[in-house]
């Protein structure tokens, strides 16, 4: 589904976006993500397609606000039956609850359900409306951090089974991992959209790279066959727009700054010598800061650290492989 919206209040937005499968829209808090969803649901005035000018009650849209807005005075099945009319209301509501795996809890009130269960009730209720589009606002925010990935994965699987185009907005880059399509919102417009591997691997601008969690962003000058960053020449394949002498930004993910193994031959290019300023455990990996001709954030997987046994203060060499260096226009 193509979305083309112009919104003036409460925030100015001009959005052109394709929603296909499970589409994730990332943006910082206050970028207007919720406003866009509310406009699609008809709760905020907007110009454009789809559903131009229709009031909320006439839009074929399943909207799950961030707090889900389950009716507290109704049981799970009564919530699901809310959009339904006529005979067999209860049976149809129960069938929808069965579809999301909650039939045994049909008689519970929302306050008696977990975050993930409430989310599935809200999904079943939205499906009862026979929507053409599903809208999810920060779908991972109400979930228990311990079980978040599994519970959210199950929700996405349920949504995929429906085959409905879905737009999920979030500020959490982790959501991009389950996306069929990824878009980034900033400065009142869509900064970039496309297949997730394309957007994640090649952010079009500094703003997008920041939102996608690129830890190392360096101002550079384009040279013949590479770039110069703080006096250091780094070789990389230049994109077509880059001309020698031009200013640009270089993005490198911390996980893609490689620590060289001293027992192996070193590559010929892009090797920097320096020392580890710090190294702290982060989950099962280690996050640290390399200080040398350039200062870089690094992320060592557990198996690498087990082999190298690095510590703060230690001299190391890091390698910036040309294919992990991403150049963006200034």
């Amino acid at each position, binding site marked *: 589904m193509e979305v083309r919206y112009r919104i003036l209040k409460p925030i100015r937005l001009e959005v052109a976006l394709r929603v296909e499968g499970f589409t994730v829209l990332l943006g910082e808090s206050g970028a207007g993500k919720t406003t866009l969803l509310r406009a699609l649901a008809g709760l905020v005035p907007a110009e454009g397609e789809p559903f131009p000018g229709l009031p909320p*009650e006439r839009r074929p849209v*399943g909207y799950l606000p961030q707090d889900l807005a389950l009716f507290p005075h109704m049981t799970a099945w009564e919530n699901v039956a809310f959009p339904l009319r006529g005979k067999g209301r209860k049976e149809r509501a129960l069938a929808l609850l069965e579809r999301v795996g909650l039939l045994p809890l049909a008689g519970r009130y929302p306050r008696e359900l977990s975050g993930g269960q409430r989310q599935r009730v809200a999904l079943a209720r939205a499906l009862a409306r026979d929507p053409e589009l599903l809208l999810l606002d920060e779908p991972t925010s109400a979930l228990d951090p311990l079980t978040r990935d599994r519970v959210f994965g199950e929700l996405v699987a349920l949504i995929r089974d429906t085959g409905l185009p879905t737009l999920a907005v979030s500020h959490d880059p982790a959501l991009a991992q389950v996306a069929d399509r990824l878009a980034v919102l900033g400065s009142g417009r869509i900064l970039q959209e496309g297949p997730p591997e394309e957007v994640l691997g090649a952010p079009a601008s500094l703003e997008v790279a920041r939102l996608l969690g690129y830890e190392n962003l360096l101002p550079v000058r384009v040279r013949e066959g590479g770039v110069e960053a703080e006096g250091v020449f780094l070789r990389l394949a230049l994109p077509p727009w880059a001309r020698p002498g031009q200013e640009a930004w270089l993005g490198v993910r911390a996980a893609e700054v490689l620590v060289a193994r001293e027992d192996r031959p070193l590559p010929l290019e892009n090797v920097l010598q320096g020392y580890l300023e710090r190294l702290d455990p982060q989950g099962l990996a280690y996050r640290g800061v390399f200080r040398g001709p350039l200062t870089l954030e690094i992320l060592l997987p557990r198996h690498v650290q087990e082999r190298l046994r690095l510590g703060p203060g230690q001299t190391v060499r890091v390698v910036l492989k040309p294919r992990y260096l991403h150049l963006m226009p200034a």
Partner: protein
Amino acid sequence: MSETWTVLALSLKLALLTAFLLLPLAGSLAWLTARRTFAGKTLLEALLLLPLTLPPTVLGYYLLLLLGKGGPLARMGLELAFTFPGILLASVLFNLPLAFNTYREAFRALDPTLLETARTLGAGPLKVWREVVLPLTWPGLLSGTLLAFAHTLGEFGVVLMVGGSIPGETKVASIYLFELTQALRLEEADRLAGLLLALGFGSALALKVLERRWKSGTAS
């Protein structure tokens, strides 16, 4: 004895009609101020609070000027001083802040995303009111109505100023009690005061029961 029942019946009629009229009046004002922002909202809210901050006799005095012989409303055909409709109007105005504040709190406690989400689920305004707003706010609405009812039973100053004490028309229980005491008819005064006490306590008890029910219903 029969006069006791006459004045009690009149008080009950006044209280019931006041509470009944306040439901749509204070209800719509409460909805407006709880849900919308508009120019002059603070002024409107202050104006609605006025009957509570004014001495009842002052409110009664101005109403008498408005509704009495030669007053601006009387000249328009609304000569309501010393009539039952007159004390009803006074009583509605006098109780407006009480009902308004309780209704507004009930509407404020209602999560606006529930109403919006109901609309995105295909519900028109009628269905939203019937299935979401009323089930979630009725204890609050009922307690506002009960409060206005009980408070009207005890009204004295405004009613006396606007209505005088005309038997069968404007002589309500609280005024009759005053007259009985003045005349040292203490046996009758005793009985009437006891009845009013029972009514007042019954209302207060009902209010507290409702409040508990409301709290447990909205906490989720």
